[in-house]
């Protein structure tokens, strides 16, 4: 692999050409920098700066890829398929934007909640882990190299395990859930690696576009089928597809509030993105659908998640846990969109990825504020908080409505797309199932609202509005829920371009451009 670049006259790159890597690099540097400086008061500003910088990068990338083109960046100057390639098209630019925007929005909230929940001496390391987690998630999304996906996945997962275990300052069960999360996450990641190994065996390459080229027309190759199975199951664990979800409720419930927000809003979304990328870009629709995998595996499990998880959520008495189960149910919607395998379905998945993310961010931040004031999220502890914490409770209302999919909220847009996709396939019974499952959402959301507004105030809770550092970000997220319920020009447009790129399979991963950077067509 040596040489190759030896005699080539190098064309100087502008700073803007580096955006794909800067996107990941900046939060990556922020983490050690915070530790290296070792000044506790600087940790948060550094993390903030890192998050904002990567948001700027992702916005520029999003704008650059909205026309359906893609940007290819060659790490170390090694051209793909040998070198590691970062490839940004509309699909991952959209997810990048989502992750970095969430990171920025939750930053002030994180400060407030970390101050309350984590002992001072751990703050620096906490923020370092937080940034590493974001780095990993961004990396998973941006990279075009299959093995690199694994590496970044583990960066984000390992830091997520640590972050979840930090909840042990509040409840010792955080430790055991972090341990369970670690076991299941590692098994999932290892399955994923096995899948990559099979792919490498069959194709001799790790570059996703190159793999896609080489496995075209090899639908009956057992090695590739095994690879697909391993990757799907492995990522299924990370996504928390319904029967593989066992780590999620505990992890969300006992993690510190800020971590729950981050995980709920971004971690599973990045994993879903990987599933999308592999099923559609790498394995290509023909392969995956010829084997009927998606129809017969993804859709039943998606339906199972939508109903079973929603039903479990209905019976919860803990707000945070209820939201965790609702997340599992909502993941079902996203999978369903994948299983529909048409443009509207995939658009629905992409747009729900975004909408659910902001909705859950708003809700979990509200939960964080409730924890701060009441000490716990059990329904009987947050009873009547609607009067003493009107701002926080209003966020719960907005987020809850968005979760149900009431018009005027972001959740409505994604539900609409999903039902429309079902009708386009002529599956009216599926449309009825989708709306029926959202009736369950009505029940579990309304239980909380009743508790918040109609109950008598619980004793022992502090009846005071959440601090601005918390209320601000959660209102940003809540207003985003409303905004994206009306203005879908960004979300739907980007989702559609992304879905188009994904659906065109190999064409979306066009032949590798030979220029060093800033490629595209």
């Amino acid at each position: 692999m040596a040489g190759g670049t030896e005699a080539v006259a190098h064309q100087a790159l502008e700073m803007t050409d580096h955006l794909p890597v800067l996107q990941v690099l900046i939060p990556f540097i922020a983490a050690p920098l915070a530790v290296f400086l070792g000044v506790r008061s600087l940790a948060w500003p550094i993390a903030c700066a890192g998050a904002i910088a990567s948001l700027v990068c992702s916005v520029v990338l999003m704008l650059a890829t909205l026309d359906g083109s893609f940007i290819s960046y060659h790490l170390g100057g090694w051209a793909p398929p040998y070198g590691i390639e970062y490839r940004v098209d509309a699909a991952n630019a959209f997810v990048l934007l989502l992750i970095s925007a969430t990171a920025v929005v939750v930053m002030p909230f994180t400060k407030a909640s970390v101050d309350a929940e984590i002992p001072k001496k751990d703050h620096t390391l906490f923020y370092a882990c937080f940034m590493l987690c974001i780095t990993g998630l961004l990396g998973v999304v941006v990279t075009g190299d299959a093995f690199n996906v694994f590496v970044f996945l583990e960066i984000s997962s390992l830091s997520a395990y640590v972050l979840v275990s930090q909840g042990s300052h509040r409840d010792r069960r955080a430790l055991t859930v972090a341990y369970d999360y670690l076991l299941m996450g590692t098994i999932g990641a290892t399955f994923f690696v096995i899948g990559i190994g099979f792919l490498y065996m069959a194709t001799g390459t790790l570059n996703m576009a190159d793999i896609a080229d080489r496995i075209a027309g090899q639908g009956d190759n057992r090695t590739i089928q095994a690879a697909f199975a391993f990757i799907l199951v492995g990522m299924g664990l990370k996504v928390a597809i319904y029967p593989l979800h066992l780590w999620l409720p505990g992890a969300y419930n006992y993690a510190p509030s800020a971590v729950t927000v981050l995980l709920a809003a971004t971690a599973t979304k990045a994993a879903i993105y990987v599933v999308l990328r592999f099923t559609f870009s790498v394995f290509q629709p023909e392969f995956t659908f010829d084997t009927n995998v998606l129809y017969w595996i993804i859709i039943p499990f998606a339906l199972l998640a939508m109903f079973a998880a929603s039903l479990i959520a209905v019976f919860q008495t803990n707000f945070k846990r209820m939201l965790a189960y609702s997340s599992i149910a909502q993941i079902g919607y996203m999978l369903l969109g994948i299983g529909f395998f048409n443009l509207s379905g995939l658009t629905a998945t992409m747009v729900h990825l975004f909408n659910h993310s902001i909705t859950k961010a708003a809700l979990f931040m509200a939960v964080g504020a409730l924890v701060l004031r009441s000490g716990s999220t059990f329904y009987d502890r947050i009873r009547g908080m609607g009067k003493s914490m009107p701002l926080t409770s209003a966020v719960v209302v907005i987020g809850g409505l968005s979760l149900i999919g009431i018009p005027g909220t972001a959740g409505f847009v994604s539900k609409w797309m999903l039902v429309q996709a079902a009708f386009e396939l002529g599956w009216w019974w599926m449309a009825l199932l989708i709306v029926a499952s959202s009736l369950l959402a009505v029940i579990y959301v309304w239980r909380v609202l009743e508790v918040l507004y109609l109950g008598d105030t619980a004793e022992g809770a502090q009846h005071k509005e959440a601090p601005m550092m918390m209320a601000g970000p959660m209102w940003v997220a809540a207003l985003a829920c409303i905004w994206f319920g009306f203005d879908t020009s960004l979300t739907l447009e980007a989702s559609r371009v992304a879905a188009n790129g994904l659906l065109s399979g190999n064409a979306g991963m066009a032949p590798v451009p030979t220029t060093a950077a800033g490629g595209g067509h």
Partner: protein
Amino acid sequence: MDVAVLVFLAILFPTLASVTNMAYRNNPNLRDSVTFVCAILAFACILGILNIVGSGISEEIVLTEVFEGLDIAFRVEPLGLLFAMVASGLWGITHVYAIGYMRGNNEKNHPRFFACFSIAIAAAVGIAFSANMLTLFLFYELLTVSTYPLVAHKGNAKAVYGARVYLAVLIGTSVALLLTAVIWTYTLTGTLDFVQGGILAGKVEGRIVPILLGLYAFGIGKAALMPFHKWLPSAMVAPTPVSALLHAVAVVKAGVFTMLKVGVYIFGIELLADTGASEWLMWVAAYSIITASIVAIMHDNLKRRLAYSTVSQLGYITLGMALATKMGILGGGLHIAMHALGKITLFMCAGAIYVATRKTEISQMTGLGQTMPVTFAAFGIGALSIIGLPPLGGSWSKWALIVGAADAGQLIAIFALMLSSILNVAYLLPVVAKGAFLKSDDNPCKGVREAPLFCCLPPAITAVGCLALFFWGGMLLDFLQPVVGDGHG
């Protein structure tokens, strides 16, 4: 002023009232007077729109595009204008009444109550002016959500249970059935605009038409078509102003208004008439009318009896749509206004009786008419209007509906309307008769006086309104003509 500006203002003023109520939660007089001023201004805006548009149809006012070819947009047309006038016009009157009622009863949480109340009005006006089904659905759900806290206002177990039923039926039907129908329509036609003659014409055929109509008819839970009527009696746990304005006017009328809109602008009368798709709906509506009337007779609780009466009366309007004749639609549209005025009078009287005597059961009201003459007079006029006797407004709409049924050749519909009128007499007039003409032996009204002015003046005004509408009935009928196509506007 521009129509667009006026439409926005008409929605903005109630919103403003809501904000004021939340912001100045500790200054009741300021809150109430600002709300009242907003009510007047909102009504003035709608009159302004009437002045400009008349019985014509305005341009579309687009706010934002949500889905491809699907906007959040407003458009003024006669049916909507009529509904908006009724809702916002009665808001001011009800507000006066609500002040009296809430203060007289020492209810709690006034700011929340009035804020939600105003939002509900904004939603109703939004529904009235919606240019397409998406916008209408948006405000429809907003109306449900904003009225939920009003139903659950008392916060006790009974109120919470009632509110749960309320929400479960309304959200359940709209999310499960109506939304499905809306998206189905959109997938079939690529648009949801309210277009004269319907958008589904030529796009669907065969069995899909009745199925889709069924999804709409039952999906619009606010129209209280049996068997999805249960929410309306449940909602009677709410304070009476809510029952009066929202559950006799804004909410239920939003339901039947949507029903008419769907019939006229989504399906189109011709499609319905040609395919006969709505015939089954007519049977359901007729069943709903008769059954609800019979149930009403059996209830002793005045508000519950009125609620079932509303269920029955809403059936009239659905029936009008299901007849799929021009006169049926016009009668339905007219009945929105007529029934609104009559029923709000009855509810406000019921509330006034409660404020003055704390009585809710009809059997306890014997002889009350002696001490509360104004209230009972208003109640009598309202009841007669609901029954449909001239010279009161209600007679016009009933007449139009019967003509419509005759046009459609549906004897059964005529029979249902007639039978229901008799039943109306049976459940409404005894209240008046007992109250005004009987004397109670144990004299339960000892020490009772007429309800406070704030409580008995508004029903008196609306009762006069019922009377006035009789003389304006023909004018209203002309006003609505463009809805069914052969207008002059």
